[in-house]
């Protein structure tokens, strides 16, 4: 059975260097029973797993459907591309613009998440990275520098009535926190109408499967996020989605205090005692990703939050 490679599970902020997606696909055998079609998107290794009985040409074709969707979502919403909708929105700050329906539904979703999380989940919080560089050093920012950025954070400050958006000067939208999970679900929908075989789509550790392959459930390895990055847990997945949030490699350490990279958009400072990684199972990857992100944002209350919400989860402190 396949053990999925979470080795390079990265934070969504990674990948400043890769501006143009490297549009190449490769087919690999995974053990005796599975085929993997691999490509890179959103700065993550991505793959589609199919039973090895699938003809390689057909597998490549199905893989291409998934890759095209991943690249499309990346191209459309990436902060790092000058031709993305995100860039276009940023260029038109201070002006009311009308966004397309897909962007509108993402903003609606971000709006609901903001409301339901009491302001913890905020797609406008990306500007805080101008103060915070999580490079493992001890360079924590001046409180004044963080303070100066706060007026530029807050979903409430933008004017949104679908499909009309007015993004105030100085603010940014960042769909990075939901984009990868959303891309998994969109790719899943595109593949589901074309493929009746069992399949699993994995974009850098956020994944979704339609049903188990004939030889038993999908086996998914969850990486333990410490120096010894070896899969410590193998989960059996029949169908549904898993998403993981958190990255142990991104932190600052000063005077013995560890500052994790999960920032509270309301204060601009890291949320203390948040888990290193949270993996959540749900029916869609978007929902799983949202729940795992919200859990991280609870800090020390993460486990309690997951329990209260009756979620299937794996938490690494």
């Amino acid at each position: 059975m396949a053990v999925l490679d979470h080795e390079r599970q990265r934070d969504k902020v990674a990948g400043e260097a890769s501006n143009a997606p490297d549009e190449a696909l490769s087919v690999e055998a995974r053990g005796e029973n599975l085929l993997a079609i691999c490509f890179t998107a959103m700065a993550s290794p991505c793959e589609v797993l199919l039973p090895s009985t699938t003809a390689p040409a057909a597998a490549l074709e199905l893989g291409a459907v998934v890759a095209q969707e991943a690249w499309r979502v990346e191209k459309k919403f990436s902060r790092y591309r000058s031709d993305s909708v995100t860039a276009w929105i940023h260029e038109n700050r201070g002006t009311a613009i009308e966004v397309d329906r897909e962007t509108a539904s993402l903003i609606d979703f971000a709006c609901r998440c903001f409301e339901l999380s009491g302001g913890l989940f905020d797609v406008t919080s990306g500007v805080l990275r101008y103060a915070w560089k999580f490079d493992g050093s001890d360079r924590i920012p001046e409180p004044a520098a963080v303070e100066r950025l706060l007026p530029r954070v807050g979903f409430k400050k933008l004017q949104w009535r679908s499909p009309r958006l007015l993004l105030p000067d100085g603010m940014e939208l960042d769909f990075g926190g939901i984009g990868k999970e959303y891309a998994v679900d969109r790719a899943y929908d595109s593949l589901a109408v074309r493929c009746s075989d069992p399949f699993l789509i994995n974009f850098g550790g956020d994944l979704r499967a339609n049903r188990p392959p004939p030889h038993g459930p999908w086996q998914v390895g969850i990486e333990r996020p410490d120096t010894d990055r070896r899969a410590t847990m193998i989960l059996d997945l029949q169908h549904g989605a898993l998403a993981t949030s958190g990255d142990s490699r991104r932190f600052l350490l000063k005077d013995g205090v560890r500052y994790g990279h999960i920032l509270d958009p309301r204060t601009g400072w890291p949320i203390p005692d948040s888990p290193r990684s949270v993996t959540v199972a749900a029916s869609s990857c978007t929902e799983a990703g949202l729940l795992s992100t919200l859990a991280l944002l609870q800090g020390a209350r993460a486990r309690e939050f997951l329990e209260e919400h009756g979620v299937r989860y794996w938490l690494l402190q």
Partner: protein
Amino acid sequence: MQLRFETRRAKAADTRRQLMAASCALLGAAAARGEEARMAPADSGLLEDWSVDSALAYYHEDGRIQAIEPVVNIAKLFADGQALNFNVTFDSLTGSSPNGALTSRSAQTFASPSGKSSHAYTTAPGQLPVDPHYQDDRIAVAGTWALPLTRVDQLSVGAKLSDEHDFFSVTVDASIAHDFNEKNTTLSFGISEEFDSLQPIGGAPVAGSDYALFEKTGHKSKNGVGALLGVTQVVTRNWLFEFNLSVDRFKGYLNDPYKITSIIDSAGNTTGYEFESRPDQRTRKSAYWENRVALGRQISTGLALRYMRDDWGVRSDTAQLHLRWSFSNLDRYVEPTFRWYRQTAANFYTPFILSTETRNTPYEASDSRLGAFHALTYGLKYAQKLPGLGGREESELSLRVEYYQQTFDERTATPAALQGLDLYPGLKAVLVQVGWRF
């Protein structure tokens, strides 16, 4: 303590449901819509912030009227979420229009409404009398202003002007919409008022007066008020419906000033004509239910049903079904449409007046639009998405062709002498429309 824990747990379960609903709304919207096309980066220009929907239609009725109709719709957005929308329509109709008289075994000569002898026309025996000089140009301008009041409430006000050489109409309307239930439900309520002024060529005929006596008065007017109550509901991620109830009431001169009714004797000979005479009030009530369903990524379908009844005795039913099938790369689609329509006749509808019979109502009209008929429309639309202009996401070029076929369900007993004549010729029409949205 236990109670508090339970409360928190219940609240968490509720939040979980709402998170799930938000995810489903996002993904469901994507599924219902299919893949979004490429988005072109902003390129400042005159059309920035404007969206333009334009169409040119050509309508042709077999042996009767033809029309050319350009339409332009432009929408402009303001910084605070307000929106303005303007629509300009121009119609140019020419051809032959039935004047209401009955087909006869003899030739029939009619004077034109203006009384000019050069415009008199004669209809050959066995032919449906039509006025061959029918010509009408209409220009209509409509504007709507939408104003968000809160995040979930919106007020819209609108006005419409329509002008023809013998008719001028002004309509004003206002509506309010409220979103609730996670924006899955929208309730709306609207009212409208219409003022019409008629200045028929040669004057407005006195209702029911003798055609030969040319009893006409100056200009006439009518006005109407209407109200609409509607609900739009997202039922599942793939199903949305809209349900409306509406009522309107018109008062004033409701006749068509150019329609006459034949008076025939028991042998079937036409002995004269009189101008039509309709009641001076009409109240209509209608219910409309539209469903839109996405069946997978490439196929969506819609079914709309409408029921209308008025106090003139006209009841109509409409059913319309469409299916949109997108090609696999989603930049093209074809949309076949089928519409079925049926109406009953107004109480006072009569194809002719029998001079030997006593009339039990002061009203009469032979206008086929008040008769009983059914109609079928078959349509096909093809649309191709193209790169956008002026910062818009995309543009769409479309071609629509419709074929309309109307059949009369008239059952009035006819004098023997008229049997064998086609007294109720149906109507066949073709519509071709080219649209460009950008």
